């Protein structure tokens, strides 16, 4: 393998790892989302450093030019990450739907409590408490 492409690959993978670690350290990236990224970056770095391993992998995969195997593996990780994010987005939209519904129901209830005459307010608050517990 050409030494230049190897150097580029090593630098890119190392930079990615540093950026990831820094993002996690600053709490900009949650560990749970960083793990898959870190794993991908470490594998890519490993393959970029140990040429013998990459050449073995390439010959197993039937790829003539070993750096192409590196791209292939990187592409696989990118697909996995995208799927991971689609799952996360689906989960978040489901959760925000439930939150919006609960908020709407609570607001309606709160509006009722607020508009009652003062003497019945404590009863209304009790009702609110019990229903929130449900």
């Amino acid at each position, binding site marked *: 393998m050409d030494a230049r492409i190897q150097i580029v690959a090593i630098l890119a993978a190392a930079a990615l790892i540093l950026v990831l670690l820094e993002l996690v350290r600053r709490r900009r990236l949650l560990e749970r989302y960083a793990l898959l990224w870190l794993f991908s970056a470490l594998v890519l770095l490993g393959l970029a450093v140990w040429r013998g391993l990459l050449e073995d992998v390439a010959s197993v995969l039937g790829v003539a030019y070993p750096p192409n195997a590196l791209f292939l593996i990187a592409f696989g990780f990118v697909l996995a990450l995208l799927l*991971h994010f689609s799952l996360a987005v689906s989960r978040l939209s*489901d959760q925000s739907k*439930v939150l919006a*519904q609960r908020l*709407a129901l609570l*607001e*309606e209830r709160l509006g009722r409590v607020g508009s009652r005459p003062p003497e019945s307010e404590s009863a209304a608050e009790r009702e609110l408490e019990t229903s929130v517990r449900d």
Partner: protein
Amino acid sequence: MPLSSNARKLAVVPAYNEASCVGEVVRELRRSAPGFDPLVVDDGSTDNTPVVAREAGARVVRHPFNLGIGGAVQTGFTFAQQHGYDYLVQVDGDRQHDPGEIRRLEHAMAESDVDMVCGSRFLQEDHKYPAPVSRRTGIHLFAFLLSKIVGQRVSDPTSGFRLYNRRAIGVFARDYPHDYPEVEAVLMVHAHRLRMCEVPVRMYVRGGGVSSLKGTGKSSYYMIKVLLALLVGLARRRASVEPGDEAAVTAAHGI
């Protein structure tokens, strides 16, 4: 007399920018279905739908942003469950449905011991439903597929004019399909071993507002999406989350 007279009954009207119609729908509900408490679920409208609805005498639940028809109807189910309602009727906010016909749904529920009664616009001999051909073709295609799947004739699977009992309310409060829910809901009724029937009703052309489906492009997108939902619904390991199951949405994540 349909249903027991001391049953608590809720009429859910999902409305998104229906200020021109929703007031009349609520007044009509109070006139011709006085046993039902009207609840308008305002799905993030930008006009004064909630004000109009409240002035007409409905309780109004307002979503902070638009969730789509499925989310709006599900809020109605959750409301019914939280407040201990026995029956819930779903009536569109655009005057497509005639609240006077709720009586027919009630009769069917009382007589045939089912969990869901759907108003169908295609059961009457003289039905006149002035919809574009593409739309009707889609409806009949879903009707054909669903009838085959659930083993019972379903003539109008896209009808949103439905009456549910407590069991159905419980199932749909936990899990109700997202975007175009009516068709998939029929499938869920089947998957949960609930029973349903249809009764003939008349439906009108929309009174105002804008349909959620305009243009052929959107119609075909709708059809593809619902077909996909049907297939997925069939293949799903479990159609819905039962009490005690792992939550549909959990903190566990990833692939």
